[in-house]
């Protein structure tokens, strides 16, 4: 028995292919990328050793910090919206719709599986101003709020909010289902007992339900942050980072540095910073959760 389960050749055959692909395409390139950060140049121009020059440039680079703040702002608002509205929806499903919520859950979940490019193209048209008004401007025009008719994606401030609305719209149904699954786990007796003790409405939610839902909410939060800090597709497809650089997150700034300016070392330095940033935020959220629960 032991002999069969400890068969070395078989273990290599089963594990080998996955491990080789994973190490060659994911692990080694990470090390390679860190190596790039100490060089300047590109494969075409040749590399020269630069020490910590890339890191020094990065600290002084205003556009890097703009991108950093954009990513942070985007992550705060989108994650906040996804988890906040997801939670509201989950409570609504569980306490108002009860057993009949399956169809609504399914419909609200749907946009998650849609291709980002298609979603962004729809939102471009919804918020369009030329050559004809999109739905949003047309409706404002119709009800007489002419001052609100504006180039939504043509201004940094409004483009940011369209982006936030789009990504919250797309993913709130996903987080609603996750949190709803957590809600059903709470025993009905617990809620009933709290009700008998006089808790109701907001007090019930605040004192009983939300604390019990905390662990799954934190997991959802970490998952969401991990996605929003790495936002790329939505931005590329909706605004292309513009107008100007107004909606350029770290990922897109890195992409431009690497592939438009051919600065491999600098691009990798941004990528390494981005990775560290995601790791630190996840660890902080995790530590915070551990202390709290």
């Amino acid at each position: 028995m032991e002999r069969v389960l400890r068969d070395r050749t078989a273990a290599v055959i089963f594990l080998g292919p996955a491990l080789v692909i994973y190490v060659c395409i994911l692990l080694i390139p990470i090390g390679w990328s860190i190596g790039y950060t100490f060089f300047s140049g590109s494969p075409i121009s040749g590399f020269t050793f630069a020490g910590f020059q890339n890191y020094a440039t990065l600290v002084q680079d205003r556009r890097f910090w703009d991108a950093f703040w954009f990513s942070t702002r985007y992550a705060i608002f989108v994650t906040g919206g996804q988890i906040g509205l997801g939670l509201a929806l989950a409570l609504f499903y569980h306490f108002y719709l009860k057993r009949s919520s399956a169809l609504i859950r399914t419909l609200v979940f749907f946009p998650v599986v849609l291709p980002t490019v298609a979603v962004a193209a729809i939102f471009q048209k919804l918020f369009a101003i030329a050559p004809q008004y999109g739905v949003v401007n047309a409706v404002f025009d119709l009800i007489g709020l002419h001052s609100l008719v504006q180039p939504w994606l043509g201004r940094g401030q409004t483009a940011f909010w369209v982006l936030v609305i789009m990504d919250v719209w797309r993913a709130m149904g996903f987080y609603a289902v996750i949190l709803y699954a957590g809600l059903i786990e709470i025993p009905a007796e617990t809620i009933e007992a709290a009700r008998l003790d006089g808790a109701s409405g907001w007090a019930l939610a605040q004192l009983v339900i939300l604390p019990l839902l905390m662990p799954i909410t934190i997991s959802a939060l970490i998952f969401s942050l991990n996605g929003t800090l790495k936002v790329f597709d939505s931005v590329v497809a909706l605004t292309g980072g513009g107008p100007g650089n107004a909606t350029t997150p770290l990922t897109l700034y890195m992409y431009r540095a690497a592939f438009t300016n051919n600065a491999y070392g600098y691009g990798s330095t941004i990528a390494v910073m981005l990775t560290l940033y995601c790791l630190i935020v996840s660890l902080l959220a995790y530590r915070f959760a551990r202390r709290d629960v």
Partner: protein
Amino acid sequence: MATTLRRSAQAATHLRQRLHPRRIAAGLIVGLLLIIQLYPLIWLLLSSFKGPTEFNLRPIYALPEGFYWQNYLDAWTRGRLNIYYLNSILVTFPALLLIIATGLGAAFAIEIMRWRGRNLVLLTFLAGIMVPLQIVLLPLFSAYYQLQLLNNHLALILTYTAFGLPLTIFLFTGYLKPIPREVIEAAIVDGANIYQVFARIVLPMMANAIVTVGLVQFFFIWNDLILSMTFINDVSMRTIQTGLLNFVGQYGQREWGPTFAAIASSVIPILIIYLALNNLIIRGLTAGSVKG
């Protein structure tokens, strides 16, 4: 008589329940929610049938006057959606097969077989869930350039596999854990070797897991933008996402009809898959995120 009375009394309470303010509020919220979530998609489908003059002369929210199929014809001929679709299929399905085969093998070796260091190997795989694609983009780009794999679907298939493996192995090991060890031990006592254990005992039990993992990875790969726009720039090799992005960039401003038709063409197949398999999809996608 008594039953009639009871019935009408029941009907009255029913009506009262139905008109309860709480229920009306819930109904209004449901209505609003459905409008918010579904209107953009319905609007997309309706707009894809509008002729060019309709866009100019009538408000954008007006219903189409008829079915202007020319939009779809334009999207598929000038937009080359047929080529992009074919490329997406040629990339997605081999990648899925590779992810499932190698991922299931690895999960089997880690969870069922016994050797030193398997926990470390599992952790190494799981760490990959956190890694942003951006950090490997440049090294992979140079490597594929050296190996002449740029503009080659193999580059995409291999990269999708590497990035699909962490979650896949996480899910598969989770599915393998509850298999009773007695079943496997009994088979070994009966003389089965390790390959027979895999093929005859474990594999049949993994049918559901394979479908779940396959669906989750399908959406990741099919919807990918960053890898396909980095490794492919030959128009004839493009996948549907980069193809659509370029189509919208090129014709999106002026030709709304064909643009809507192109977007709808990328949404409709996903919609059909979702209508058929929504329970499995929801379970799979949510299992992949918050079990950890």
